[in-house]
């Protein structure tokens, strides 16, 4: 297995506080990597440093061997690195279809072709497929803000896949989602992993969700990696139990 993304010695300091402290890991092609850790262990900061929302203080990120450290979010996206956010980040006044098309339109054609070309950027069919894949059929013309929370969460995930990304980083996809939608989401993510060979890294608090979905798990505490391995190994790791339950 070759690494799709490798993170080497990444650090982020805010003033005197070290939020991420020399984190190194790899995401392999086709896997679902779970990243867990107690609150404040630096998970979201890690994502934000990888994805251009924050500038890392030190360290390196490589995507397919290419150094992408500190690149802008929009350029990373166009290199095939997609993400979702911890809190819902939709365009509430746009329709569901427009939300999806927007998620794909900047990845094809040129600036000029996006002005003179078709209004749907040729993505209406892909958007419809994505809707039925995430079981949101019939909602295309509704404005995103009017959907229920669970449906918004599904749409949020669907948007991440519109541009056929090489790697998707999901930040707490299960947060606040009720159990029935959660089962749907898990099953859809697994299907997209198996059918399309998509690679994910997922930050999540819901242990059940992580343990049942991920093929490998990375545990962060106080900005460092304290354990890595398959779900069973991690579950039994003494350091992990200590990090969660305190000393």
């Amino acid at each position: 297995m070759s690494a799709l993304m490798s993170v080497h010695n990444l650090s982020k300091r805010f003033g005197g506080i070290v939020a991420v402290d020399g984190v190194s890991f790899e995401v392999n092609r086709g896997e679902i990597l779970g990243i867990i850790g107690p609150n404040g262990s630096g998970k979201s900061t890690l994502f934000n440093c990888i994805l251009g929302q924050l500038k890392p203080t030190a360290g390196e990120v490589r995507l397919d061997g290419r150094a992408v450290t500190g690149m802008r979010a929009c350029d990373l996206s166009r290199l095939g690195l997609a993400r979702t956010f911890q809190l819902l980040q939709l365009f509430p006044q746009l329709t569901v279809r427009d939300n999806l098309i927007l998620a794909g339109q900047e990845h094809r054609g040129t600036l000029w072709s996006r002005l003179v070309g078709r209004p749907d950027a040729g993505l209406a069919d892909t958007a419809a497929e994505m809707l039925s894949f995430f079981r949101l059929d019939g909602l295309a013309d509704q404005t995103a803000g009017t959907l229920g929370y669970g449906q918004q969460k599904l749409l949020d995930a669907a948007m991440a896949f519109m541009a056929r990304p090489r790697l998707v980083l999901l930040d707490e996809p299960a947060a606040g989602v009720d159990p029935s939608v959660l089962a749907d989401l898990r099953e859809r993510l697994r299907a997209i992993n198996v059918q399309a060979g998509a690679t994910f890294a997922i930050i999540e608090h819901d242990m059940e969700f992580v343990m049942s979905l991920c093929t490998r798990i990375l545990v962060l505490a106080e900005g460092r990696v304290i354990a890595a391995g398959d779900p069973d190994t991690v579950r039994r790791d003494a350091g992990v139990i200590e990090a969660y339950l305190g000393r």
Partner: protein
Amino acid sequence: MADVLQLLVAGLATGAVYALAAIGFTLLWQASQTINFAQGEFVMLPAFFVLFAMNALGLPFPAAILVGIATGVLVLGWLFKQAVVAPTIRHGALPLVISTIALGLLLKEGVKAFYGAEAQAFPPLGGAANVSIAGAIVSLQSLLVIAIAVAAVAALQAFLDHTRTGRSIQATAQNPGVARILGIPVERMILYTFLINAALTALAAILITPVYLANFTNGEWLGLYAFVAAIAGGLNMRGAIAGGLLLGFMDNLSAAYLSAAYRSALPLAILLAVVLFRPQGLLGRVEEPV
């Protein structure tokens, strides 16, 4: 040498007034995310309150000043917060920005329509007397302006640092969310910043209007200078003082040594220099883009 001293005093005097307006602007922005585009009109209007108190109510100048400041605090502080900001900020930051821009136009056109478009004389605090310092002739007015502005800023700083309310206001300005968790009555603190802002702009009005006459268009450039001072300073109180003084000096320098055309380009040039070379401002901290 005498020239330099004269310029120094004049620069300090105008700069101190810009600093007062910039401090108020910064406080509002930090504590309540209100970008007050009517700040210049907030410095223009209280002068007319004072003139109205003198001419229509027949009050003596010192009493009129008190009436002017009190009316300013009431109208531009309390009423502005309750009638304009509170109902609008629910809809987001952009409607409020538009609303303060419209308020600037409203106050300007209101003075023009209801008071008059003619520039009015405004009595100076220290009369027309001059003082000689080290061979330079400087006006007593300038020295008084500097003294009053310094006293006002010192009083404000003491209030913010050494009283419970003041520290609560600072906490609110730094992070309203955390302040709320700490049990600080954030809404009341925000109202206080509006009152402080109005008091600062009313004071600025009384200090600067004798030099430039009371005119309904004064707010346009006063506002611009306050914004530039606040942004160049880095959107914090010390920065606003530094930005105001710097702007006062440069304004007086360019008036003395450069043509009018270059002088009018000063605010634009400073703003462009800030965004190009020091986006966080002179005394600002670098912010993360999240």
